[in-house]
């Protein structure tokens, strides 16, 4: 299924370059998550849960980072799975901290940004829609009666980050293709001129 979503020939380069952004975003999540877990710790069980999740994420990110540093090409299924795991980890932590009341939902923003500049539009839209739906579901459980509009605004801005990210991805793809086309058209002319000279 992932081959259908992320065509290898067309999207492999995007995946390679975008994975750098995903990895950087995940390191930010790991460092911030650890810092915040130790800063103002809650119940011991909750703290254990957070530490295990964040350290697990850091080990997975180290593996992915080492693959990139060694110049190995990204495997779409691995990148997709790791990105889904990011969203799942943030959602789990938000859910265990009271859903709507948790302030940790802001970590969805860098995660969604990284996804939106890495994957093709169909995949990015699917990821963003699932993320927004998952957060809507988690936050709706303990939503105060008069805070519906606050939740709607949060969901709107989450979608906005993903849409802006992927819009930029498309603009840059078109610019790159146009630049490559110009060079492709120009090369035979230059060769011909050189041969004549």
């Amino acid at each position, binding site marked *: 299924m992932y081959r259908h979503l992320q065509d290898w020939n067309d999207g492999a*380069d995007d995946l390679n370059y975008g994975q*750098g*952004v995903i990895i950087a975003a995940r390191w930010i999540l790991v460092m911030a998550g650890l810092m915040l877990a130790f800063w103002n710790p809650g119940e011991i069980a909750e703290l254990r849960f957070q530490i295990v999740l964040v350290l697990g994420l850091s080990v997975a990110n180290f593996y992915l980072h080492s693959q990139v*540093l060694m*110049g190995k090409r990204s495997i779409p299924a691995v990148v997709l799975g790791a990105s889904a795991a990011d969203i799942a980890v943030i959602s789990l932590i938000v859910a265990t901290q009271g859903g709507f009341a948790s302030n940790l939902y802001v970590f969805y923003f*860098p995660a969604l940004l990284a996804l939106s500049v890495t994957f093709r539009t169909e995949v990015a839209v699917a990821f963003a829609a699932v993320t927004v739906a998952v957060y809507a579901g988690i936050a709706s459980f303990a939503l105060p009666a008069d805070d519906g509009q606050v939740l709607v*605004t949060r969901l709107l801005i989450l979608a906005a980050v993903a849409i802006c990210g992927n819009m930029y991805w498309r603009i*840059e793809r078109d610019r*790159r293709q146009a630049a490559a086309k110009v060079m492709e058209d120009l*090369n035979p002319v230059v060769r011909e001129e050189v041969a004549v000279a």
Partner: protein
Amino acid sequence: MRETRTSAQEAAEDVFFGQAVMIWARWFLIAGSLILALWTVDRVAQVVIGTLPIVGLMAMNFYLHGRYLAGRPANPVLIGMASVLDLAAITIVVLLWPGHRGLESQFFVMYYPIVLAFAFVMPRKAAIAYTVAALGAYTGACVIGGISSFTGPDGTSVDMGSLEVLVMRLITLAAMGGLGTYYWRIQRNRRRSATDGTSVVQADPVGA
């Protein structure tokens, strides 16, 4: 083949092509602000006062979007001024909105798409300056608008929970600016490699 375009031309093209992202980020800012402005207050005067800056932002964005659609996008100075106005509008609302001010204001989420769009389009130094300005503006608004949020029950000690929330928001906001400008740099290198026929993957695997 040697690159014939200058950095200035390249930056102008970045603004030319990229400002659609900024325009759409501003439409989301307007939509989100409108939802909060219309449904979080219950007095007519508050709705009117809250809607006025949104109308101003809409007028500005109609102008910029119109120019973009007409094939005459705004120049970097105009774009920069509009972005500073966005920042000022969000900060004023965070600072002064009745009921929930400073750290308790939910308007802070509007900073995210605005900072991201700016980092995607503008050169790195400008993006860093804008992100730092956003961080400073939000911190200032939280301190001035809701100093009581940071004090404990005795009124003098610092409430670590509130400070933690502020730091969390600042980290993620800085991440938007940082990751945006990082990706901008990756794309610039890819574009350059597309015109000289080389790949930057081997030389620079993560676009650093």
